[in-house]
């Protein structure tokens, strides 16, 4: 091609000559693209029709299969397999319905997009005004190559669009329907459990502690009291199995029958598990080996009640004669019973001291569990109807059982919550709940530091301390978050926030540092943001709970009365991670140790862990 001379005096300007051999190739490309778009539309249309026909078959409104299954269930209401079939079929149909609806909607948009592209392409490719071209020449090979490139680019874009659309459809077609709650079937009593009383095992030789009370590190490694260190039910270990099968013994380290009934929870120190049990005639403290489940010793606690003392009021639903959880400081184990009998044993089972606190004036039986602070045993002994100065908080010397201090009479009636010990600045406080006061006492002297009017009725949930807030709750009043650095009546000054939904009447709250979780007896799980008290979620589980919830790493563990353990993801949204049956009634709260979880069932002490 000859160069065009630049005769202008200014800067050199290049002029691209219009070559008659380079015709506009877009119309030809548009023609091909139009046919591809048409084919695409036809494919989408065919898929839409297929989807519609299939959706008619998965219409849950007219499903004869589901109707037949339900009719069969009416005849056989106890057929669990039939129930399972209905649930699976129902879930499957709803998934299909949702999938068809989503496919239909997205297919419609794809079809619309394809048609629009087709119309534009056909308009540009075919219906363009043709001008007279007197110098029309045949297309040379180089232009054919360009045309091919354009056509291939169009096909590529269309293919990418189709693939993208298909990916969107397939990725969003996963159903969001949550399966209906499947109430886990209580497992049959394990056939592998020994029927006869096992031979007592010899306690392992452990070096005797030389200090009067344990360090914080020692406490953190064990499970010394109700709901573990601090009473906050936060597991220090997460290295035990989260799934198990009691019937097959999978991930069940051992399972040992319990000889004396009780609703209290297991406490653990080193390799020894302690529980208590009682009936109308006897009271027992039992020790089991953590590694094997064998009974180490079992000791009876004689009552100190004078002859002719009226037996205590006891309700089996409230825990019977041994609802209070024992406590151990690694030097001794301490137990209290509804009769008002208190006893201490060393870790080998030798009695150290006993003390009779008097017959508790309690409507359902004394159930508050023990705590310890340094070398003092903390006993919350609330009684009566709030009159007559009967209720008090006691600190006993752990070595002798003698009273170290006794609080002034507490202005509360009988209660069932367990106190906790918290550290506020340089001061240690014991927080105890009753109707209507949450009260904090100096752990050294027993003098009252502050009180907040925050409770109501028969106070049973125990307080917890998390993120610098004392959390106390009772159904009928509020969940109150109290800043613990006040003095005097702090009702109007130190209550950071209150919440009033999903309040439990038996179980205690649990917190993971960001959220506090409540589970009611009827199965409503509610989470609140710890910092603000704003409700994060509420979820109905439709199960009954008496065991308090626990935090294990980033999981929340709930155990219902029938022994179904439910793992829930902690955080702002409810997400159930799984369920596992323990096979028997569970009222107690679990203990978490290195590689093990110990649970007291109605009939057995169960240890979850690698076999």
């Amino acid at each position, binding site marked *: 091609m000859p160069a065009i001379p630049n005769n202008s005096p200014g800067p050199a300007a290049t002029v691209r000559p219009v070559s008659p051999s380079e015709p506009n190739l877009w119309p030809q490309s548009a023609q091909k693209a139009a046919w591809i778009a048409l084919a695409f539309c036809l494919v989408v249309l065919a898929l839409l029709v297929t989807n519609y026909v299939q959706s008619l078959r998965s219409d*849950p*409104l007219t*499903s004869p299969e*589901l109707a037949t*299954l*339900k009719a069969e*269930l*009416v005849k056989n*209401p106890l057929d669990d397999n*039939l*129930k399972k079939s*209905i*649930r699976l079929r*129902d*879930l499957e149909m*709803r998934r299909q*319905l949702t999938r068809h*609806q989503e496919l*239909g909607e997205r297919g419609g948009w794809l079809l619309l997009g394809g048609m629009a592209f087709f119309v534009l392409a056909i308009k540009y490719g075919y219906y363009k005004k043709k001008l007279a071209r007197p110098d029309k020449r045949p297309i040379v090979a180089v232009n054919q190559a360009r045309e091919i490139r354009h056509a291939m680019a169009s096909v590529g874009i269309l293919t990418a669009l189709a693939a993208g659309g298909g990916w969107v459809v397939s990725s969003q077609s996963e159903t969001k*329907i949550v399966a*209906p*709650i*499947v*109430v886990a079937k209580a497992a049959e009593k394990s056939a592998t459990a020994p029927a006869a009383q096992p031979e007592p095992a010899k306690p392992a030789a452990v070096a005797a502690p030389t200090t009067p009370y344990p360090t914080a590190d020692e406490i953190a490694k064990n499970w010394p009291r109700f709901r573990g260190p601090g009473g906050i039910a936060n597991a220090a270990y997460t290295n035990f199995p989260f799934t198990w099968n009691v019937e097959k013994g999978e991930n069940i380290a051992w399972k040992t029958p319990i000889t004396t009934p009780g609703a209290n929870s297991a406490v653990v120190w080193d390799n020894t598990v302690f529980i208590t049990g009682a009936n109308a005639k006897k009271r027992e403290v039992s020790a089991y080996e953590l590694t094997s489940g064998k009974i180490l010793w079992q000791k009876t606690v004689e009552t100190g009640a004078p002859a002719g003392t009226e037996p205590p009021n006891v309700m089996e639903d409230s825990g019977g004669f041994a609802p209070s959880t024992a406590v151990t400081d690694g030097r001794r184990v301490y137990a209290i019973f509804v009769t008002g009998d208190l006893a201490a044993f060393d870790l080998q089972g030798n009695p150290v001291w006993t003390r009779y606190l008097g017959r508790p004036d309690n409507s359902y039986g004394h159930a508050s569990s023990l705590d310890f602070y340094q070398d003092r045993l903390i006993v919350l002994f609330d009684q009566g109807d709030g009159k007559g100065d009967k209720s008090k908080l006691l600190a006993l010397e752990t070595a002798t059982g003698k009273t170290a201090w006794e609080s002034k009479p507490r202005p509360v009636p009988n209660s069932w919550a367990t106190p906790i010990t918290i550290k506020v600045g340089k001061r240690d406080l014991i927080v105890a709940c009753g109707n209507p006061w949450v009260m904090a006492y100096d752990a050294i002297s027993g003098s009252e530091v502050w009180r907040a009017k925050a409770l109501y009725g028969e106070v049973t949930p125990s307080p917890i301390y998390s993120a610098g807030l004392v959390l106390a709750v009772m159904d009928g009043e509020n969940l109150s978050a109290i800043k613990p650095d006040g003095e005097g009546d702090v009702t109007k000054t130190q209550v950071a926030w209150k919440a009033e939904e999903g309040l439990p009447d038996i179980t205690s709250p649990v917190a993971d540092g960001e959220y506090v979780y409540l589970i*009611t007896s*009827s*199965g*409503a799980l509610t989470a609140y943001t710890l910092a603000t008290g704003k409700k994060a979620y*509420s979820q*109905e589980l*439709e199960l009954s709970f008496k065991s308090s919830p626990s935090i294990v790493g980033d999981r929340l563990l709930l155990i219902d009365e029938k022994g179904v353990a439910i793992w829930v993801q902690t955080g702002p949204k409810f997400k159930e991670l799984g369920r596992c049956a323990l096979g028997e009634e569970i009222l107690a709260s679990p203990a978490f140790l290195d590689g093990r979880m110990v649970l007291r069932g109605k009939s057995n002490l169960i240890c979850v862990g690698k076999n």
Partner: protein
Amino acid sequence: MTMPEIPQNPSRRGFLGGGLRGAFLFLLGAASTLLGRNTQKEKTVWQLDPYKCIQCTRCATECVLEVSAVKCVQAYPICGYCKLCTGYFDPQPVSLNTAAENQLCPVGAIKRKALEDPYYEYTIDEPVCIGCAKCVKGCVLFGNGSFFLQVRHDRCLNCNDCSIARGCPAQAFKRVPASQPYLLKDREHQA
């Protein structure tokens, strides 16, 4: 060449006559405008009268939309918050929980939440609801009748040729003013 004709001043009679004609035309226009405005009909939309509805399930299938524009709604002031809700549970529930075999709703669109024993709150998950009226039938037969169907106007196409209205055996569909598009149940009417 002729001189242009000098226009003559209008006569008094002509001036008054022209003025009267103008005023008449103005009044006629104003009257027509007012008359037209008064006679303009208000825009209307389709709605389902809940007291005429016989829960035939056709609302779920007759609508031109793939998921019907008719949805179940809940009148909370009327609801008894029953533990055994006959709008929620199958007529012969095996147990009173949320398991699929016990639910009446074919798509699980009713959410059940425990309030305080024995009271439960029932909420309709509208995007899931297909408007089949099974729950409405159960609630009307044995409960307070707090569940009822309504055309949801965020979904309805308002095509003026409602296929459900044509298929409704109870003639429960009617045009209602767009400014008041819902026909709600109330406690006084229920009583």
